[in-house]
């Protein structure tokens, strides 16, 4: 059975061809487009049973609450986790900050270390810098090898004194998937916890928190077909239970007295105020859609297209492709010699191909790559070989306009 991107594409209103022809979207690592099924689920919520959750006795309030909690169950099942550990946040960034504050402020102190990798997204780096500053803990960095893989040769030494390993699962620049099982095992042996930044893995491969045995996992709905404004932190219930709350407010309380308060049980302890119910319902529909397509099929497909894209781009003279030559995801960062990524992206846009240009929230990694910025093309289930052809042809056009030698 071959994967039919063309068939899936029909479900995405924004991807329908216009009079000018078909537009090619290759920026799904930044945010994905949304299928009709997700848009309808959210619309149906607002047109039929929009209400604040948890406290309403009337019918639509009960229905909204039920669907919201069903979304929690469903998304937890999707990642193989206990739903009591599933907290809805705005996005990956907020999820990581939640842990950095609620776990970090109480569990880090002078002399402790937090271990990250050299390829970390700012969202899995800056929160740890902020909490390090407040607690006196220090950051330590797992280096990369030439191809962008983690260099784990010094891992045991790096783990000395580490309380938290904050680790990207799949890179948003290099197209690598990190050997997180190995790091998790080593970290646990030394008594450190592990948070996985799964913003780029949960959308594009099967992820099972039980099998991985990670302590925390963060991801964003908008990168996996759901609307913006909904994300997830999953944490092991026994760890979450011991943590102080993060945001204070409605819904997360037990008993409120002037002198202090008690908290509701997890996961609600970590959800303050009116949640994004419509967003959670959208994420539920997105997860249904993804399972219909099949996460294993998506992962295989990503790998195929990623390989093809990397190979075809590498064939062009004056084009450098970052990341490994072997196994990879459908996220490919590259540069055209002597042409700034902004200019590449601008010309590609004129050719009807949307890619991202910049540091992709990975300034330290770009310094390592000795590039101020890069171009990034990333595929999703609606892309196919024809889109890769269009990309390559458009990069040729860049070479012509800027007279790139070769």
């Amino acid at each position, binding site marked *: 059975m071959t994967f039919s991107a063309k068939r899936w594409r029909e479900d995405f209103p924004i991807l329908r061809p216009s009079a000018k022809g078909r537009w090619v979207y290759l920026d799904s690592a930044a945010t994905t487009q949304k299928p009709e099924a997700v848009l309808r689920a959210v619309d149906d919520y607002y047109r039929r049973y929009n209400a604040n959750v*948890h*406290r*309403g*006795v009337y019918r639509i*309030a*009960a229905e909204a*609450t*039920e669907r919201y909690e069903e979304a929690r169950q469903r998304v937890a099942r999707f990642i193989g986790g206990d739903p009591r550990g599933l907290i809805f946040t705005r996005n990956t960034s907020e999820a990581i900050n939640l842990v950095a504050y609620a776990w970090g402020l109480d569990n880090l102190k002078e002399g402790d270390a937090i271990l990250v990798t050299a390829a970390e997204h700012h969202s899995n780096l800056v929160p740890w810098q902020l909490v390090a500053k407040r607690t006196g803990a220090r950051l330590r960095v797992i280096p990369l090898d030439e191809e962008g893989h983690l260099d784990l040769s010094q891992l045991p030494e790096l783990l000395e004194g580490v309380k938290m390993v904050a680790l990207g699962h799949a890179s948003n620049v290099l197209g690598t998937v990190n050997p997180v099982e190995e790091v998790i095992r080593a970290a646990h042996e030394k008594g450190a916890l592990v948070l996985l930044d799964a913003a780029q893995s949960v959308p594009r491969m099967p992820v099972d928190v039980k099998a991985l045995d990670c302590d925390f996992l963060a991801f964003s709905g908008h990168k996996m077909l759901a609307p913006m404004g909904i994300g997830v932190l999953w944490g092991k219930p026994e760890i979450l239970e011991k943590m102080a709350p993060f945001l204070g407010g409605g819904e997360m*309380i*037990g*008993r409120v007295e002037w002198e202090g308060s008690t908290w*509701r049980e997890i996961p609600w302890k970590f959800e303050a105020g009116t949640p994004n119910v419509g967003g959670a319902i959208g994420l539920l529909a997105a997860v249904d859609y993804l399972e219909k397509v099949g996460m294993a099929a998506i992962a295989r497909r990503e790998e195929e297209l990623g390989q093809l894209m990397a190979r075809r781009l590498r064939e062009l003279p004056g084009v450098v492709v970052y990341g490994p030559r072997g196994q990879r995801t459908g996220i490919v960062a590259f540069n055209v010699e002597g042409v700034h990524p902004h200019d590449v992206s601008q010309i590609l846009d004129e050719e009807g191909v949307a890619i991202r240009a910049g540091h992709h929230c990975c300034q330290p990694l770009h310094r390592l790559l000795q590039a101020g910025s890069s171009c990034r093309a990333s595929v999703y289930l609606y892309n196919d070989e024809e889109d890769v052809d269009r990309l390559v042809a458009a990069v040729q056009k860049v070479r012509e306009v800027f007279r790139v030698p070769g």
Partner: protein
Amino acid sequence: MSLDDLYQELILEHARYPHHRGTLADPTVTLDAQNPTCGDEIHLQLKLSGDERKIEDIAFSGHGCSISQASASMMTDLVLGLSVKEALEKVQAFQDMMRTGEPREGLGDAVALAGVSRFPVRIKCALLAWMALKEALEETGAM
């Protein structure tokens, strides 16, 4: 679903004049439980026999809606005099009834609450006292 299922005369009677409402002079176990979403609270007290096998006396106080009050009243009627083991079986039967909506035998007046299962938001109200009882009995460790 109809209101009459929910607000049967028997339920309203129990809610208006609850049985075993008050406190015990010499309780073996005391347990507070609450429904944080609505603020309802129950304080449940049990007096167990010397070997902690039997519920010799029971009382509850606190505040809550008619369903939670009636449910507590019906429950205390039912479990007074039972062994810990029997009482826990009743709790299980009541939970099953809430989940399935099927009336269960051996629940005394509490069978009138079967209709609550059709009002998902209210199930928590009906369960509050029973969950408190379960927790209290488990605390005694007398099973």
